[in-house]
């Protein structure tokens, strides 16, 4: 099993890495990447029909550090 992993807030994560990533950010060296996963629901469970909606997860890579930056607007959540 994984060791105990503390949960951190977005503010803590960004504050901790700000100094390292800020320089790259200014130089435009950060890259925005994504993984698209899905949210599927069965329409007819007997026939196995389902509908999947894409769910994009965004990541920012700066100075070799990858931080997920998905927010409520990434997938048009209100």
């Amino acid at each position: 099993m994984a060791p105990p992993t503390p949960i951190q807030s977005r503010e803590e994560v960004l504050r901790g890495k700000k100094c390292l990533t800020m320089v790259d950010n200014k130089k435009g060296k950060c890259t925005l990447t994504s993984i698209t996963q899905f949210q599927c629901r069965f329409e007819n469970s007997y026939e196995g029909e389902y509908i999947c909606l894409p769910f994009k997860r965004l990541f920012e890579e700066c100075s070799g550090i990858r931080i997920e930056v998905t927010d409520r607007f990434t997938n048009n959540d209100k």
Partner: protein
Amino acid sequence: MSSAAASLKPFTSAFSYTIRAICFLHITHSYIYEFTETRGESMLPTLAAENDYVHAIKKYKDGKGCQIGDCIVAAKPTDPSHRVCKRITGMPGDYILIDPSLNAIREGTDLDEPFESYIQVPDGHVWVTGDNLSHSLDSRTYNSIPMGLIKGKIVAANDFNKPFWNGSLTNILGFRWIKNIYVEESNDN
């Protein structure tokens, strides 16, 4: 050689070849390549809920050479006798949101919490999630998994629900490649 030994020779020879074939299959299955069935809706729509078979390459065992966005086969942390197929969505050292899809699942809620709760993936571990975030038991439940539990990387699959011949040699029995889906976003986004 006695006549009894001579009469037994075909049987001992067949037995010997059977043992060798079993050893060959075992070594191939453990260290080179595995073709195995997957079940469950956690990897929809990438893998079908049933009758889907995956091609796993064992050189990626223990997570060697695995990248974020790869599909992997791993022993289930809560029950190592079972295997799971998941997507790597966090490598060691990455800061990952625990469950950004939580809001969408709980329709009608307006919480910012899913976008506020991070974990840093520990060294030697990966964060894995099913492609179907709505029906997947994964790192969101059992935390990141040790890379030692990774048994191989899925590179292709055959959907046995599809007809044998589908008009092309490249998709016999629903064959398709399973690719890494970690991509760079274009600048116009």
